[in-house]
């Protein structure tokens, strides 16, 4: 990852969503992007130029654009039409983003487009987030990583976030090795990042 002092940046053409630039690099704001928050807090998986990423829940493509600055190819999956329009615009200007309009919980819809990836990054506001991650493991290379941004409030607002996290972690451990779990405070409330790797 590229740091200027303690500011996380990414190399690439600016002006995607009005982000600041610093010495020609695009500032990647941890308050706006959960992935940036994870890196700022010292966690995450190093993004390198040769890796391929499956990004579930790409939304408007702001975080996806930063990921694309670092890696070889990003498969960006988004389901809702409105953000998809923005994502298409981002993908038009970034030749390594492949915009896929599909439901992340139905991988059979986009499997015909998918190669094996080194990293699955998932940021979806669904109650069955762990299940969605499991279904997408078919795309992850052995030894590859999964970063799951657990929105505990989307799972169940009534329950204690820590409890929701423990349950998600247990669910992931069925098929993955959990390497790191951390809350994204103070950048994002009630969001936790779970970093796992697929058994090789």
């Amino acid at each position: 990852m590229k740091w200027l002092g303690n500011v996380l940046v990414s190399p690439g053409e600016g002006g995607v969503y009005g982000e600041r630039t610093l010495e020609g690099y695009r500032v990647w704001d941890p308050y706006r992007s959960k992935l940036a928050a994870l890196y700022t807090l010292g966690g995450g998986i190093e993004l390198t130029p040769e890796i391929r990423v499956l990004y579930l829940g790409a939304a408007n493509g702001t975080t996806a654009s930063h990921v694309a600055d670092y890696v070889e190819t990003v498969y960006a999956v988004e389901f809702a039409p409105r953000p998809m329009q923005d994502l298409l615009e981002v993908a038009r200007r970034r030749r390594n983003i492949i915009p896929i309009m599909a439901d992340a919980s139905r991988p059979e819809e986009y499997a015909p487009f998918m190669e094996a990836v080194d990293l699955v990054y998932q940021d979806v506001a669904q109650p069955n987030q762990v299940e969605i991650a499991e279904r997408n493991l078919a795309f992850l290379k052995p030894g590859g990583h999964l970063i799951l941004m657990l929105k505990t409030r989307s799972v169940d607002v009534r329950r204690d976030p820590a409890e929701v996290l423990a349950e998600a972690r247990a669910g992931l451990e069925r098929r993955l090795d959990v390497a790191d779990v951390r809350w994204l405070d103070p950048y994002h409330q009630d969001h936790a990042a779970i970093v796992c790797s697929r058994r090789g």
Partner: protein
Amino acid sequence: MLQRYWFGDVDEVGCRAAGTDPAALAERAAALRTGMDSFVPIDWETARDCGVVRTREEYVDLLRSVCTTLARKKIALSYQGRDVELLQMVRMLDELDNVINLLSERAAEWYQVTNPSFSRKYRSLPAKKMLGIIRKGARGGLSDAAEEIDRLAGTRSRLMREVSARADEVMPNTSALIGGLVAARLLSKAGGLPALARMPGSTIQVLGSERALFSHLRGGTPPPKHGIIFQHRRVHNAPKPVRGRVARVLAAKLAIAARLDYYRGEAVPEFLKDAQARIDEAGVEAS
């Protein structure tokens, strides 16, 4: 094992390329269904050996244009429904309400400063009349602003009629039960007719009172009896002791109505008659 990929079919024997035209590939890919159990991820070099592309760049470029074409089509399809525009119309209407209220409040405050004898308080002065007074009484910017607010109010009334008419057309059963405007607001909160049709009555009952609902779920506070449906006269005119019951029955009938609207798309008189009777019955206080 045959694998059907976006660029062609691949099996042990070899591969059959599906051409290089993005539009044709997109059309073919839209129909592909993969069983995840037997799925093998693509090796892009297969596409190269197949003769579809020569380099990795070409592979990604072609895949991108196929996926972009597909996404455009899906977006267009999802915006096709008549309910999608209604959603935007009713949101614009509610936004106009907000803006008009804010602006008139501000105009009144300003006018009061220039005209010490004017007070809006303790006078039953409708907004429209007040704006008329300000427009005549004030000069310059304030008068212009009042005129614009008046014009906005006109836009709002016209839009309101449009919303009602469109709601009657898109959701005839729901509109018949609760009126076009409130029906449209329910639609907007739910996020579309398909979403509304899949909601249980209990959710429809509290649509629009999310704050009260979640504070209830998180702890302690009493549950909300009604959200948007409070705007319907049968709910807000109901005597307090039975208001919750009316809201519950009405919401239950609305859930059925929304499903009729979505799956049948036309008014169902028998259902409406029974539903109206049942709702009226709920409003009768036990003696």
